[in-house]
């Protein structure tokens, strides 16, 4: 190589200023777009919080003449124009424990809805987790040819893609009348002395909402459990078989414990989905705001309360509904964060 030729001919090409400008602009643009996620989340939380703190719409709250800048009045003062306190300051934490939802007297307690939300979600999980994990095991063992297993897995995933309103329509016309004859009425006749089964099932009720939630969370649990079972190294299974374990001994004592992080994480995600599920539950739960201990009487969840009452609500009721929404947001947020933490904490690493 000649002395003068190298550096001169092969000088590193410098970016032109315009190129650099485009590059930097692009980086900033994508960062801006990525931060939209945070902006949207913050806006959702702030909007719901503001609406539960004050009555009236957002533009009234920040209105220059009557808005928040001029103080807030209690609902008792009828003459004051301007901003009124909403449900969060009015009812405080007693909102969570009171059982009376009375739009006529503007007294709101969301306990029946919160109880309904937790009850339906947890019962749905209690039914769906064994079925989902069992299906996942069946799909990862070699009982059936690979092709059939893929088809079954695909079908379970398709179930997750069916819109919840379609499932609700199906539950309303087909599933609930069928289950009422086959399951609910016999259960009521046999076990009617237990308070949970005391009401005569006559139509939409809490138990059928649980059933449709099972159908909705099953694909999530199955898909995530199957993925985490599939990712286990083959040596685990070989080692277990080598010491003479049966197939189910391997599954129960080696494979499921090894995949537990994925299974629990999937279950928590399913719980988050069940807590917030709206349409199917609204169509099948009966939408009662009265507290009722029987599973065969109409009930309600926070989501169904919102879907059912928000359209016709006014004044304090709107604020109370936003307060209920705030409770739901906090609940799903905690469940989702717990799910991510569990997956990270429990996951075993195989090298």
């Amino acid at each position, binding site marked *: 190589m000649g002395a003068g030729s190298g550096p001169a001919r092969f000088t590193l090409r410098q970016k032109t200023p315009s190129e*650099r400008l485009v*590059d930097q602009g*692009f980086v900033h643009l*994508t*960062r801006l*777009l*990525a*931060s*939209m*996620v*945070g902006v*949207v*989340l913050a*806006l*959702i939380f702030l*909007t*719901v919080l*503001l*609406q539960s703190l004050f009555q009236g*719409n*957002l*533009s009234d709250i920040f209105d220059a003449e009557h808005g928040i800048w001029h103080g807030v009045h209690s609902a008792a003062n009828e003459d004051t124009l301007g901003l009124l306190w909403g449900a969060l300051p009015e009812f405080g934490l007693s909102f969570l424990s009171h059982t009376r939802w009375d739009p006529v007297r503007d007294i709101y307690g969301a306990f029946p809805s919160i109880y309904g939300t937790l009850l339906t979600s947890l019962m749905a999980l209690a039914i769906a987790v*064994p079925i*989902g994990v*069992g*299906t996942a095991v069946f799909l990862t063992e070699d009982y059936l040819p690979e092709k059939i297993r893929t088809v079954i897995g695909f079908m379970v995933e*398709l179930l997750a*893609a*069916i*819109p*919840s*309103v*379609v499932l609700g*329509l199906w539950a*309303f016309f*087909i*599933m609930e009348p069928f289950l009422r004859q086959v399951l609910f009425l016999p259960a009521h006749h046999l076990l009617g002395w237990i308070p949970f089964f005391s009401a005569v099932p006559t139509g939409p009720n809490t138990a059928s909402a649980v059933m449709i939630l099972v*159908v909705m969370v*099953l*694909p999530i649990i*199955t898909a995530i459990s199957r993925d985490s079972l599939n990712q286990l190294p083959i040596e685990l299974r070989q080692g277990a078989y080598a010491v003479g374990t*049966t*197939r*189910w001994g391997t599954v129960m004592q080696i494979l499921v414990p090894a995949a537990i992080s994925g299974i629990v994480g999937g279950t928590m995600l399913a719980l988050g*989905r069940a807590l*917030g599920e*709206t*349409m199917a539950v609204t*169509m099948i739960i009966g939408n009662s705001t009265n507290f009722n201990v029987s599973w065969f009487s109409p009930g309600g969840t926070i989501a169904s309360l919102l*879907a059912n009452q928000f*359209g016709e609500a006014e004044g304090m009721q709107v604020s109370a509904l*936003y307060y209920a*929404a705030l409770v*739901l*947001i906090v609940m*799903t*947020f905690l*469940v*989702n*964060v717990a799910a991510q933490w569990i997956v990270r904490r429990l996951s075993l690493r195989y090298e």
Partner: protein
Amino acid sequence: MTITAPRLGATSLLYESSKPRNIVNRGLTAVAAMFSLIAVLPLILVLIYVLIKGGASIHPRIFFELPPPPGLSEPKGMGNAIIGTIAVTAIGALVSIPVGIGGGIYLAEMGRTTKFADAVRFGVNVLSGVPSIICGLFVYALVVNTRVIFGESFTAVAGGISLAVLMLPTIIKTTDEGMKLVPHELRLAAYGVGASRFVTITRVVLPAAIAPIATGVVLAIARAAGETAPLIFTCLFSPFWPDWERGLGLLAPVATMSVQIYNFGVMPFETQRELAWAASFVLVVLILGANLLARWLARFTAR
């Protein structure tokens, strides 16, 4: 201490089907098979009912006519809801695809391991867990009730925005994961021939990752098309054709198939119920088609 070796009988290594553990084994296999059947059964039943009940009321005129007033049986169609679903979903896609792909590019290419990127990934997971009804309430408070869109309250645009909020996490996640699968050598080669970062990403990495991204986008659109909860309080419903005078019908309340199922399904009128099943049929076929398309796209990449 003496260790007594277990005495191995001649038959102890053979499979004894009457041993408790083997009985348990067979029992659990049967239970698992039954669970799988239970898991698949709802899908089959839903599909059968939707295809039979919905399929029976599918007629060409259903696509060109309006729904009847309550109690009457003529006209019998849902053309307005089909147009509405397409319009609202398209608005959602138009808002969320650029934002989602841009955000995904940042996560995969710019900030891969930065704290900010981790925070955004956390935010994406939280946002994908926000119940869809909350999205509806949020957009109602922010857009509908404040009348920020040209002084209109319930509009197709507001519905599109709430669907965009729902689609955003899926699109960011699939873009992020799809671009991470692109081999690093491709980027190095592009930088090696003097390409700038912008050119590398838009001309080399993005085309290489387009199939997984397209899969995610198709699935997100399919999910959004069937969403109901965020639309009840944002686009409301309308039994009429879109009002073309008001921003091509986008600045007015609009009917969608999913809300039609919710509104008509529980009405005591036979025609309305038929239309609810018909809308279910169209939605389910649309969504199954989109899922098959997404699967085909995924296989397309694997090759």
